[in-house]
């Protein structure tokens, strides 16, 4: 328990908050790296995901690629980039951006690809062009999943940035890594609390944003679907996809 009081002593020391390596400056650096990484990833992943999902082609390929990237350890990318000469936060941004692509890509592809074919057919029957179908039908229906992807990506990057402290990047992780290096476990714990707190706050805020972004029709229909005794409400997209989506079982037919 001594460590815990050490941690709070560290957090209570104003000197640890101000200055070039203070908590405030490190948090700012942390957020900046995160923002850059997610933006970079979104620029690559969102258009690609929209294209793949809309064409309903190569969806599996996209997911396989995303899965393989998931297998790539961040530490590997960080050490690779850092020893290739990209020191500091450039390596961090690049590595985290690559890490953020899978959730964005997969969620966009599945979000668009899982839109009920009947709905798309109906839109086609109404004479909608491919682009109009995409913008007015498929994207709004996919928004919850895409937003979830963005949220996952942001939180994942926020959680990954601290690792960069191992290869010389500056972020809140610096506190933890320095603490481990100097065997001050109070500081390690304090850094851990700060990093965890940042991620939890971000996750909470983004959950609210995701909810606000979700079209109202989808928002309401998702609620009864939570209980195990789901009722079918005709005409609501979520219930309609449940019968034909790829992970809905239905083995005997």
């Amino acid at each position, binding site marked *: 328990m001594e460590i815990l009081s050490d941690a709070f002593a560290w957090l209570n020391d104003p000197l640890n908050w101000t200055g070039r390596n203070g908590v405030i400056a490190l948090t700012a650096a942390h957020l900046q790296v995160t923002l850059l990484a997610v933006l970079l990833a979104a620029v690559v992943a969102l258009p690609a995901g929209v294209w793949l999902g809309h064409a309903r082609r190569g969806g599996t390929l996209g997911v396989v690629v995303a899965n393989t990237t998931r297998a790539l*350890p961040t530490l590997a990318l960080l050490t690779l980039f850092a020893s290739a000469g990209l020191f500091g936060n450039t390596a961090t941004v690049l590595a985290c951006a690559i890490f953020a692509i899978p959730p964005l890509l997969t969620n966009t592809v599945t979000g668009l690809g899982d839109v009920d074919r009947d709905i798309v057919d109906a839109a086609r029957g109404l004479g909608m062009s491919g682009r109009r179908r995409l913008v007015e039908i498929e994207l709004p229906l996919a928004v919850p999943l895409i937003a979830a992807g963005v949220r996952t990506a942001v939180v994942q990057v926020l*959680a990954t940035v*601290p690792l960069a402290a*191992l290869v010389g990047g500056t972020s809140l992780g610096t506190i933890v890594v320095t603490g481990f290096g100097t065997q001050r476990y109070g500081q390690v714990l304090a850094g851990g609390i700060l990093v965890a707190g940042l991620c939890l706050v971000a996750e909470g805020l983004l959950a609210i944003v995701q909810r606000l972004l979700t079209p109202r029709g989808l928002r309401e229909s998702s609620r009864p679907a939570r209980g195990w005794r789901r009722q*079918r409400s005709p005409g609501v997209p979520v219930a309609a996809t449940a019968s034909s989506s790829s992970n809905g079982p239905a083995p005997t037919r």
Partner: protein
Amino acid sequence: MRLADTPPNPWFSWDYVQRNHADITEALGQHVSLTLQAVAIALLLALPLAALAHTRPRLAAPVVGAAGVMYTIPSLALFALLAPYTGIGRTTVLIGLVAYALLVLIRNILVGLQGVDPAVTDAARGMGYGRTRMLVQVELPQALPSIVAGVRVATVTTVALVTVGVVVGFGGLGQLMFRGFRSNYHAEIMTATILCLVLALIADLAIVTIARWMMPWSRSRILSDVSA
């Protein structure tokens, strides 16, 4: 220090692999055993938790919420929070890995259970299935595709995450990466990276193969989808 005439530092070197064979094998073994153990423990914990959350919908939010909070805590921070108490070593890494795999699994199992066609559960209820029997004999088998998807993601993520264990000295292939970074030995980093990727790929393929064998109906569904 960078000199023009430094000895070559290639990214790929078979020579390195041959010379450090024992070292690499040891790191790989540590990596594999940590991954298998973590996923197995996580699955054993996740199945009852998800089933509980499913049968008692009121518990769903707290269970998923708690797992979500665990998942949101970054690996470095989690190891930092655990290390002072569980020590520098294998246990700390294992606890962290299980915590992360847990959320993926619970979420997927829950989604699978909730996605079961109500007509099927209605039929089972009409045939006099009790809650437990329905869960074990009807809902869980129906949720298998989703569960398998969860296990795949959990395994692949765990393979990558083991490397972070380097902060407490138990990072499997991560040890090689970090050592390579410290001594600026490119081949060491690259070899460990490639091994990580190959390991994840093999694990993923193995799970898919097992899943196909476990779920003959999904095979036939793929066929019928093609013919439709």
